[in-house]
């Protein structure tokens, strides 16, 4: 059993609880060990039909013609479905929250943009009959040049991948081709830094590889509706997406799920439900659309490969005074959720460290590969890989222990973050201390005495002058619970504070928490339109 360090932050908790905190047996464990937990496919239907997809063999090609006559006549085939049969054959997942343009067809009609893109669906009385019918379909393609590298895709004259975003980047706020973060003046700070580290990191795409592949069964119900048993991770998200693609009112669909054989982010994209429902409508029979393992592995969306450049400006005493990040998310041929990954990445920069000058540009880029989507750690995993390798390189460059280097730069309560929000509820330092103790990783005394609750504050953001002092010792154990300050969302600071302005003298004692702002206070920033382009209704 893991070790619960109840002693740390005890003054901020009330541990007098009855059910919370107990290692209670899972509600579903008995079902799991008896094989009775019901996943979407654990429902039997008389006359179940099977839907299989014919997929593009080309990364980029024009479709000249499709001849499915032989397939339509093949034994067991009940229906062939083409793009023209899909009521709304262009969608993007986040249209449900008004983010982005519809860019992806359920079945391609004129162009295919990744190897594996669905072109034709066959519905038959058995999987075998469906697969044999697929082999009888003749599609004539005219291959086109393709682009696979994110930086190549951004060069002028690159192959245009996605018709809705012809320059191969998602459009934010109808104005920018990337997410931006600007805090302080990173370029000026680099000029002052003792050491500059400029590095490149590359993540591989990753397969979610849940043991249960994506799948759903659409069943005509007794009341004109359709029941859909589904492996989705987001019930209404999938229901509303399927309703939009099928041009059906949402209450015509009855989605049932909730017990899923692993997801990790790969079961949000609603890959199987829309066509399963359409097939059930067209045939009047229950239809299962299930991805094979090969399909799941190569054509079910992966975590997109991310390429990240990180430039740090570091002082000899170990302070990072500037961090600049340029990141590219490989969205593949269509947007799905990658537009959002870039925002999440921008939101995570520069990591859990207080750095007074931060600049970032994060791109969502289209290439001719399987569209990417969310995966465990979405937008953050790759960045953390880059940041934490970079921290190690920085430690080596200044000749400091890697853990102490991180603790020196760690954010604390009251620090100003690059997104112009006050850091609160921090605990990086304490995690480092506990892990070091467990692993017998030696730390100097001053680092063992550090605390997330002290040493932070307004003056650290203005140039970090008080970092040159020895870190403040941890306070004596509190005799009363520390006040829990609500999120402060405005911050008065001098306009355009460059890294070089003389910082105000640090106080002798930690400054008191800032005055509580009422919860409804406005941001310091002017009210730009929301990230979704239009205000949410």
């Amino acid at each position, binding site marked *: 059993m893991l070790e619960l360090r109840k002693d740390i932050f005890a003054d901020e908790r009330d541990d007098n609880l009855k059910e919370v905190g107990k290692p209670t047996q899972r509600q579903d464990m008995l079902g799991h060990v008896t094989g009775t937990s019901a996943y979407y496919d654990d429902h039997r239907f008389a006359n179940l039909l099977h839907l299989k997809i014919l997929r593009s063999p080309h*990364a980029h090609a024009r479709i000249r013609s499709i001849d499915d006559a032989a397939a339509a006549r093949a034994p067991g085939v009940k229906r062939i479905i083409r793009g023209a049969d899909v009521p709304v054959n262009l969608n993007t997942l986040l249209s449900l929250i008004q983010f982005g343009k519809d860019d992806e067809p359920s079945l391609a009609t004129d162009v295919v943009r990744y190897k594996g893109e669905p072109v034709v669906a066959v519905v038959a009385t058995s999987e075998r009959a469906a697969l044999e019918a697929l082999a009888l379909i003749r599609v004539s393609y005219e291959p086109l040049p393709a682009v696979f590298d994110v930086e190549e895709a951004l060069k002028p004259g690159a192959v245009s991948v996605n018709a809705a975003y012809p320059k191969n980047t998602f459009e934010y706020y109808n104005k920018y081709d990337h997410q931006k973060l600007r805090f302080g003046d990173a370029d000026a700070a680099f000029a002052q830094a003792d050491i500059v580290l400029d590095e490149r990191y590359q993540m591989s795409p990753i397969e979610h590889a849940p043991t249960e592949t994506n799948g759903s069964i659409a069943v005509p119900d007794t009341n004109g509706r359709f029941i859909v048993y589904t492996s989705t991770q987001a019930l209404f998200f999938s229901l509303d997406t399927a309703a939009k693609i099928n041009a059906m009112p949402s209450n015509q669909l*009855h989605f049932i799920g*909730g017990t899923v054989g692993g997801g990790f982010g790969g079961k949000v994209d609603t890959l199987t439900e829309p066509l399963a429902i359409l097939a059930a409508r067209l045939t009047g029979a229950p239809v299962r659309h299930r991805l094979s393992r090969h399909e799941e592995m190569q054509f079910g969306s992966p975590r997109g490969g991310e390429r990240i450049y990180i430039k740090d400006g570091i002082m000899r005493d170990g302070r990072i005074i500037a961090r600049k990040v340029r990141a590219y998310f490989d969205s593949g041929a269509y947007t799905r959720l990658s537009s959002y990954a870039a925002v999440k990445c921008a939101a995570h920069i520069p990591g859990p460290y207080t750095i007074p000058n931060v600049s970032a540009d994060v791109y969502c880029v289209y290439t001719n590969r399987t569209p990417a989507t969310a995966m465990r750690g979405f937008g953050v995993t790759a960045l953390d890989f880059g940041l934490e390798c970079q921290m190690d390189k920085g430690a080596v460059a200044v000749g400091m222990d890697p853990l102490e280097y991180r603790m020196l730069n760690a954010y604390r309560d009251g620090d100003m973050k690059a997104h112009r929000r006050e850091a609160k509820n921090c605990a990086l330092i304490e995690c480092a201390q506990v892990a070091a103790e467990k692993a017998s990783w*030696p730390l100097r005394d001053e680092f063992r005495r550090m605390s997330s609750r002290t040493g932070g504050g307004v003056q650290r953001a203005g140039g970090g002058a008080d970092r040159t002092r020895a870190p403040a010792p941890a306070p004596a154990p509190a005799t009363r619970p520390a006040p829990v300050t609500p999120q402060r969302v405005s911050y008065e600071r001098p306009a355009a504070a460059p890294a070089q302005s003389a910082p105000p003298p640090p106080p002798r004692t930690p400054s008191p928490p800032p005055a509580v702002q009422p919860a409804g206070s406005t941001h310091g920033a002017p009210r730009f339109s929301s990230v979704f382009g239009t205000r949410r209704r």
Partner: protein
Amino acid sequence: MAKHRGRGVATINYPIGMNLGGDPSQALVHSNPTGKFTVALSSIDLGQGMKSVTRQICAETLGVPVEDVYVDTADSDTGPHCMGSFASRGTHRVGNAVMAAAREARAVMMEAAAEELEVDPGDLETDGRGAIQVKGAPHRSISVRDVAIAAQFKQGKTISGRGIFLVPLSDVNPETGEMSPATCYAHACLIAEVEVDDETGEVTVLKMTSAYELGRAINPKLVEQQLVGGTWMGMSHALYETPEPYYPDTREGPRDFNEYLMPGPGDICPHDIAVLERPAPDGPFGAKGPGEMCANPVLPAVANAIFNAVGVRIDELPITPEKILRALKARGGAAGAALPRAR
């Protein structure tokens, strides 16, 4: 030819919930005629324990034993809207929605009990074992069962509640990136110890030691499940997995698990975990959520440990034996990159 040991560290934080907020979840809680409760959700259990965590949170809030609560999910006809299980939002968002619904149900329950006992609701407390009693006078009590019967058949009250939790959607300044990404963050520090074979390039992860700060461990066993399973996945990302081994070249993509590699039960290592709890002011009982962050620190910790062991930096994942051997060759051999301090 030799095996070299090294240690590497990573420290991270993780935002809880969908970035920028705007991701609501709702819950409904109601009592049956004999005082047993159902939580109706449309939230999804992927294995992370959604049904179990929400059950405990509901029982705690209602003040009844967990055996008297069951979670029913997911059905779009009966479960109210939940944005979904992703972004480490389940415990925080759905947990909060369940708390709100359970609080409303509890308030009705206490009112009904007060009417039966002829006291003020403020004078009553739940004993957590199925009874409601007068504070300071526990002999004056009534079972939850009897309260439920009285409420429904005599008083005409419905012991039920509705809850929604929403972090309001944050604006983003497109020029500066000013935004409120999340209301709380979890934290972790992980130290990985590896052994690198400089003849084969193979990396064996020997041990992991970590500290995770999660706000509140609603169920320590479920937390342990996530942290052990997640760090396995992190090791897998770092050293094994890729559907495009020659990325950005798309050739030779694996088609099955013989070609898509992941570590097996013989490749795992001991993992010594500590959990810290600094409650999030807006978390259910302070809880944040470990679902995604558990894998993240392993990737760089292993890369850093490899550098410590043999002195090469591999900045492209996965770190395969081939990449290590090429790097060692370019470097002219392996040499542990000892850092300025004694270990």
